[in-house]
């Protein structure tokens, strides 16, 4: 499931107006309390509430992790208990399946993600650089058209996309899936993040390089790209995550005959027949661990990308 978010404004805009600070008309007898916010600890009751809420919130993830390492009998006895007799049996069963679901799925997903992102980054960035140096009405129109791409439900363009790929003889193929990734809402997202950063690049830098005789391509690649590295990080991280987790497009653009990405593979093999809890959680754990580890390793940029990125 993807949550696409870009906006021309950040969630954290500075206040447009300063508050009217303390007026003198204070009701007498009311003690002046310290700020109600700030880094003070919550009362024990509210802290408990917070912890309980968080526990309920993480329970599905917790269940997946603990039960991936438990024997079936232990899961049935108490699903919520931590693994008393930890076992790697579920994971090895998942990895030694005859259909190589996980190995093939992870490999195919990785290929699609790497190819798509490696192509989307330069396309989005070069386009943003070009458009952000334009001061015309055409620019606003183009950006508005790109904004629409973030909103269009993928189901609306799925059928024509398949027809276009068929016309190009790329239907039911990985190159076709990657190609369709390059042009959709992913491109819009990349452009919006980059444009936000490009605006902060001083014009003087470009002019100076111009006077030194550098061409547009060279300025973009050697001067601009290093300057907008944070944007590249944001774009690469989010696009990787969304393309990795994509389900609809691989399901219908690749079809069942072309090997499986991790999401379509899970859907087909886990959805088809009943399996015991241990097996299921083992597979889910291994399938979900890669994006989660990636997220934990890069969560600073992740959250920064979520909340900044669009800040002007």
């Amino acid at each position, binding site marked *: 499931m993807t949550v696409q978010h870009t906006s021309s404004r950040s969630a954290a805009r500075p206040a447009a107006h300063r508050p009217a600070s303390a007026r003198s008309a*204070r009701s007498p007898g009311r003690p002046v309390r310290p700020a109600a916010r700030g880094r003070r600890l919550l009362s024990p009751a509210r802290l408990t509430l917070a912890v309980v809420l968080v526990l309920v919130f993480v329970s599905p993830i917790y269940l997946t992790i603990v039960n991936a390492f438990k024997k079936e009998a232990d899961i049935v006895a108490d699903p919520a208990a931590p693994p008393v007799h930890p076992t790697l049996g579920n994971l090895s069963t998942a990895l030694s399946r005859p259909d190589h679901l996980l190995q093939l799925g992870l490999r195919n997903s990785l290929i699609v993600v790497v190819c798509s992102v490696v192509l989307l980054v330069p396309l989005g960035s070069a386009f943003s650089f070009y458009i952000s140096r334009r001061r015309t009405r055409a620019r606003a129109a183009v950006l508005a058209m790109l904004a629409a791409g973030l909103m269009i439900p993928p189901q609306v363009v799925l*059928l024509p996309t398949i027809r276009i790929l068929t016309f190009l003889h790329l239907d039911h193929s990985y190159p076709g899936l990657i190609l369709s990734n390059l042009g*959709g809402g992913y491109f819009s997202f990349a452009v919006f993040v980059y444009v936000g950063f490009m605006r902060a690049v001083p014009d003087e830098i470009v002019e100076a390089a111009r006077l030194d005789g550098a061409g547009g391509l060279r300025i973009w690649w050697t001067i601009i790209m290093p300057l907008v590295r944070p944007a590249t990080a944001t774009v690469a991280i989010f696009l990787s995550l969304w393309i990795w987790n994509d389900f609809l497009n691989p399901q219908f653009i690749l079809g069942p005959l072309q090997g499986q990405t991790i999401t379509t593979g899970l859907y087909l093999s886990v959805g088809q027949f009943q399996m015991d809890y241990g097996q299921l959680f083992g597979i889910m754990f291994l399938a979900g661990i890669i994006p989660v580890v990636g997220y934990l390793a890069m969560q600073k940029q992740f959250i920064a990308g979520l909340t900044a990125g669009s800040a002007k």
Partner: protein
Amino acid sequence: MKPLSHWFRDTSQDLGLRLIAALGLLLYLVFIVVPVFMSLRSSFTDENPLKSGSNWVGFANYSEMLHDDQLRSSVGFTLALALGVTVVANVVGLAFAMLLDRTELSYRVLRTIAFLPQVISGVIVGFVWKTIFTEDGLLNDLLARTHLAAQPVDWLGKPHLAQLSVGVVVAWVLSGFTTVVYLAALQNIPRELYDAGAIDGANSRQQFRMITLRMVAPATTISVTISLITVLKLYDVIQVLTSGGPANATQSTAQYIVKMAFTNDRFGYASSIAMFLLALSAVIALSVTSVLRRREVDL
């Protein structure tokens, strides 16, 4: 000073950059803009993949939509889900964010945890929640252990319960996102505002209403808009959790399009429903954004 475009005259040295930029735009046109118009055209035909060529049928697909009970129930479910999930996810997100904002303890850890549901693919989310909600699943197991329910509850088998279950799962996924957005907004509220409010004698409820809610208004705009759009195009979570059942009770409009196209092989009719979903998404996104923006200014 010369205008910047002066530095980007049509010179051969900019050809490379222009080519890459043009290629990006071309791909966008080919895979988003052109497909939308192709869909629009298909919606006036009886196109299906089993025969070549298609006949122009005018507005027949659209008039059929008016009498399509499955479509009506899917739109009802989608709108109810979008509205309910958006409200819940934003309330929970803001509440979570305020709790995290005030806890010294392991704020980073909690924030990390809060965002996890966003990171895991919808297919995995669907399967894990399915093991929780199925009749012999983990939730009923818990209810039996704690003697809260005498009989196992068929969470995914009864229409209304299944709709509720889907709502819980989607709200769970989105709450992670809203929490992080609101948290960033809270971090940026200057402390002096609350000091000033306290001096003016505002109690904590008033401080919340007059300061917190107003200062996070831009975050609300983003968070609500994205929540709505996300639910409108949601497919994977529902597909795994219920496949639209029981009795199409949890079939969203997005799923109905896919079913019409790939199960019933009616591309033309599927396209007309797709056009409807596109219009619905546009109207909702634009109207909600403009209303919330105006609210930001008023506050």
